[in-house]
């Protein structure tokens, strides 16, 4: 006796596991149900995005940014093209700005719907997941009529967008928003205020303010911890300063500030704000205009570098682009919000039960495509 250490067990969660949201591997040490140590192992989905970019022209990089965060591809396009436009000093037409914001916000709703649905699935609620997928489907339909693709759009171009909105898009979007607002109440009733759901998520995986900032956690996760920080409000890019919307922050309604329920709730509230933005954008958008007007003949940003960040559904999505004046970038670095969020996992989920680790992981809303790139 004494040779076998009977009180701790190493458990591999993943790379293939129903709730790791992709091919993530978590090496955890468990003491019974209690998890004492978590080591995330990533890289299973590494597709050499940054190396690829060295061989591609600036336009050809755009479809690759799609494939990083495949849940919110529009937002990834958006960040990249705005960064390159900043370098080249391009002023895009007003209609293009509005179209981009409509697309980005619709995609934010779609992304949050998926995040909330899969979060419900992690907790064991199967039905809300399908309700949310049903509504996400409508957004994908809208994207499909616009650019033909449902997931990887390659819609935004440097200096414009690939297609103008099709006839009837505006009306269809209004119709969708009307329906969606009614349905969001249903989500709250079936999931958010469900007592079992609250018990499972409230007070679990609390991410305090200072820890969140220290770990570079951004987006809804940071706002869930009670920090009012939204790039759309605080460093407005594109024409976000023209819109009126609130920045929901976690208030600890069901437990303490910064728990999993708060992160969930912030996302649910953000969808409502996005609906508001889309509505305003549809109201104000110039009805006519050439979306290809400002397309540059050739994309060759002047020598120099830029670090530019936008608010993707997962947080601060930063692009560090270095140009040497040729048609191919020297370096494109993507600062992915999910990457930093995952690095905080071991800090906030250690000491909880095995089930809670997966709940916390779900509440961080990671996309492995973006983490591994």
């Amino acid at each position, binding site marked *: 006796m004494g040779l076998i250490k009977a009180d701790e067990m190493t458990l591999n969660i993943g790379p293939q596991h129903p709730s790791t949201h992709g091919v993530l591997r978590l090496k955890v040490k468990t003491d019974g149900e209690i998890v004492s140590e978590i080591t995330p192992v*990533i*890289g299973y989905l*590494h597709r*050499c995005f*940054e*190396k690829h970019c060295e061989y591609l022209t600036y336009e050809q990089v755009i479809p690759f940014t799609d494939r990083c965060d495949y849940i919110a591809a529009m937002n990834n396009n958006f960040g990249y093209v705005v960064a390159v436009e900043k370098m080249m000093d391009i002023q895009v037409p007003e209609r293009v700005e509005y179209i981009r914001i409509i697309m980005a916000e619709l995609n934010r709703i779609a992304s949050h719907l998926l995040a909330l649905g899969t979060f419900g699935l992690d907790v064991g609620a199967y039905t809300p997941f399908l309700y949310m997928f049903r509504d996400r489907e409508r957004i994908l339909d809208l994207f499909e009529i616009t650019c033909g693709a449902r997931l990887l759009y390659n819609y935004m171009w440097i200096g414009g967008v690939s297609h103008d909105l099709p006839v009837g898009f505006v009306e269809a979007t209004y119709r969708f928003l009307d329906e969606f607002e009614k349905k969001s109440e249903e989500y709250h009733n079936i999931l958010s205020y469900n007592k079992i759901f609250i018990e499972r998520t409230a007070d679990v995986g609390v991410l305090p303010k200072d*820890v969140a*900032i*220290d*770990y*570079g956690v951004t987006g809804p996760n940071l706002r869930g911890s009670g*920090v009012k*920080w939204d790039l759309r409000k*605080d460093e407005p890019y594109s024409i976000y300063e023209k819109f009126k919307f609130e920045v929901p922050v976690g208030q600890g309604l069901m437990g303490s500030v910064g728990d999993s329920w708060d992160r969930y709730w912030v996302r649910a509230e953000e969808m409502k704000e996005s609906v508001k933005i889309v509505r305003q954008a549809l109201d104000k958008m110039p009805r006519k205009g050439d979306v290809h007007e400002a397309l540059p003949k050739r994309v060759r940003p002047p020598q120099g*570098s830029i*670090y530019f*960040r936008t608010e993707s559904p997962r947080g*601060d999505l*930063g692009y*560090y682009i*270095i140009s040497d004046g040729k048609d191919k970038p*020297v*370096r494109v*670095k993507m*600062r992915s919000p999910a*990457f*930093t969020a995952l*690095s*905080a996992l071991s*800090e906030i989920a250690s000491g909880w039960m095995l089930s809670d680790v997966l709940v916390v992981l779900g509440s961080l809303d990671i996309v492995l495509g973006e983490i*591994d*790139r």
Partner: protein
Amino acid sequence: MNVNQKVSQIVEEKFPGSVIIPEEPQNDFIQLNSEKWNEIAKFLKTESALKFDSCQCITGVDLGAETEKLEVRYNFHSTKHLHKVEIRIATDRKRPSIPSVEQIWRVADWFEREVYDMYGIRFKGHRDLRRMLLPDDWKGWPLRKDYKTPQTYNGMKVPKVRKGWD
């Protein structure tokens, strides 16, 4: 006075000789000497006028095999004063090494591991410097400009993607 000038002034006062003054004043970054980087980093985070409490991004950069150096670029942001700064630190290409800031900003842990993974820059004082995205037994530093795509991996031949295409 913009943030960069202010920061470089304050840092130069505290750590004389550490700021390599950029050749052009309109540059939007600060080039630092790598020697005292750890202390400067601590100073950047705690000094009340700066308070760069959020490390946004750490980017490894290779500007070509002929430059004889590798660079690491840090983007910092302050949630107190809402200002940001870019700091660049160059290192020798042959034996790249930079003091780690992993214990100052926790997020730097993974960022530095990624830079090490891609460029082979050793971060002195990092507690867990391993490969991040690539397999542990990978050879070479893929994002360096002089990196050659290997023909074999662990003795296995990398198959050509398409036969009869070229």
